[in-house]
């Protein structure tokens, strides 16, 4: 209908006639490709090509100023023997294992707490969410100052209650916990808001029915809230694990990976190899190990999802 209308209307000019000959579906398709083109061109040039090129570069010995030469999988073989890299993997794992459960417990606890029809919920939510949007470099600098062994606020506070404060960032035992604590502070507000949204999606009628049946608040939490929130929790865990694998800014600013590599993380190691030692091939190989780890975590968790996540309300 619309097509024939177009043909009759445009009959005057030859160009319009030619356009009219294209079927409506063809023209829709053409419009779609034109609409997608700017996004897709940028997407291919700045994402797809570099991603694939990264795998290619990982097969080269490439020292930036010397011409690259092909070495096959030697970079990956070297990584397997690299003791610093082993430490780096372990550090990243420690960071993730320390951060994710703490983050989830804090954010879930606060969300459940805030969801009990409080006044000023928005104000509390605002305070807890604020660190999320702040510049990581700037807040890492603040925390570096808070952790100062002599004049930092944390040790001043510990001193007031008679506890000895450690040398946080320059003690190999305390540097990682310090990094984790700062990162929990920076990140828990995000999942808290996510959980609050999930909690508000649970119908009040379910709670009312449970209360009539004599369920205690504790039972309501374990039997209703947590099972019904499990899709959100699952999503939050996956995303928090993935972002933990990619930690960089705060480690770079607060410790630079030290002391004695105690806080050297995967991305920091990519940066050091690629942009301090200019080993392009080696840095790309590490990047692909990171990518593979994230891929595996995603797959494993997608499988696990079917087992413990409850989707029907």
């Amino acid at each position, binding site marked *: 209908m619309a097509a024939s209308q177009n043909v009759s209307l445009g009959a005057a000019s030859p160009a319009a006639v030619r356009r009219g000959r294209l079927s409506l579906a063809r023209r829709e398709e053409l419009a779609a490709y034109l*609409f997608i083109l700017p996004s897709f061109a940028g997407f291919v040039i700045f994402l797809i090509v570099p991603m694939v090129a*990264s795998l290619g570069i990982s097969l080269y010995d490439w020292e930036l100023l010397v011409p690259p030469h092909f070495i096959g999988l030697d970079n990956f073989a070297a990584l397997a023997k690299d003791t610093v890299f082993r430490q780096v993997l372990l550090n990243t794992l420690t960071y993730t294992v320390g951060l994710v459960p703490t983050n989830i417990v804090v954010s879930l606890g606060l969300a459940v707490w805030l969801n*009990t029809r409080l006044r000023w919920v928005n104000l509390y939510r605002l305070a807890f969410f*604020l660190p999320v949007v702040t510049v990581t*470099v*700037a807040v890492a600098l603040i925390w570096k*100052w808070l952790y100062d062994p002599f*004049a930092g606020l944390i040790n001043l506070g510990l001193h007031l209650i008679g506890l000895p404060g450690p040398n946080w960032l320059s003690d190999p035992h305390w540097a990682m916990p310090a990094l984790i604590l700062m990162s929990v502070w920076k990140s828990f507000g995000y999942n808290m808001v*996510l959980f609050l949204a999930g909690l508000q999606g649970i119908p009040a009628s379910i709670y009312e029915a449970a209360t009539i049946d004599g369920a205690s608040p504790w039972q309501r939490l374990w039997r209703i809230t947590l099972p019904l929130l499990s899709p959100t929790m699952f999503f939050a865990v996956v995303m928090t694990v993935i972002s933990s694998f990619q930690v960089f800014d705060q480690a770079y600013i607060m410790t630079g990976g030290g002391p004695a590599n105690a806080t050297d993380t995967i*991305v920091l190691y990519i940066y050091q190899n690629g942009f301090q030692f200019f080993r392009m091939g080696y840095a790309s190989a590490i990047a692909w190990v990171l990518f593979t780890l994230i891929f595996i975590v995603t797959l494993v968790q997608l499988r696990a999802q079917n087992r413990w996540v409850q989707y029907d309300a």
Partner: protein
Amino acid sequence: MSRAIAKSLTYGPLSVLAALTMLPFGWMVITALKPGDEVMTNPPTWLPSHLAWENFPRALSFFPFDRFLLNSTIVAVGATALQMLTACLAAYAFARLRFRGRGLLFVVYLGTLMVPQQVTIVPLFLMMRGVGWIDTFAALILPSAFHALGVFLLRQFFLTIPHELEEAAVMDGAGHLRILWQVILPLSRPALATLALFTFIREWNAFLWPLIATNQQPMRTVAVGLSLFMGQYGTEWHLLMAAATVTLLPVLALFLLAQRYFIEGVALTGFGGR
């Protein structure tokens, strides 16, 4: 009586936790306003003897922070504008137009959401170096303006807009650009605001790529500039905190003005701003 106790049991600890969460910002401002010789004293002073406002001009004079702020603004605004433009067009096509390969192409977009940015930085650096774009705004803006998240977010939103609303425009013979501009976009304000804010904040906070893509001081962004400042004046905490305050202020102002969109954005996608 018991109600009052219950109330204070809820609000008391919650308020303490909220205050603790805000404490690092408070300590930053207090330190930034202390005279230099009161920062490292033993025993400590909790409050400054007088407000040392001169810390701010002093801190900002060591490095060209005005230039860093300008650079960050150009990068964040540029990347946000480009992201909005390209994502709106592509999302409209995915949500409203039928074309061959639509399903496959969308899956490709979705799949890249999982790709860590760090995988692309070495080739991107070599690419930018190859075309001589190190220390240019193009290098700072382009790689982050085509994130698949924008297309995904807007497509999901466009799909919720009923087709009936476009029918009048179609009857009038409006093309797709006009339908997008006059019907779809005005109805998508919350999603557009969310995407714009998240993109802006992500770019303002970005550190790793700007650190790699720039060498010359006049091209540094504010996050990188702050790290350089720390590298050179690592113990002048009153000056460092003054500089940190200046870096955080624009983001805090933006957040307080538009907090609704941030909160809704998290609930909507669970992706942005992480």
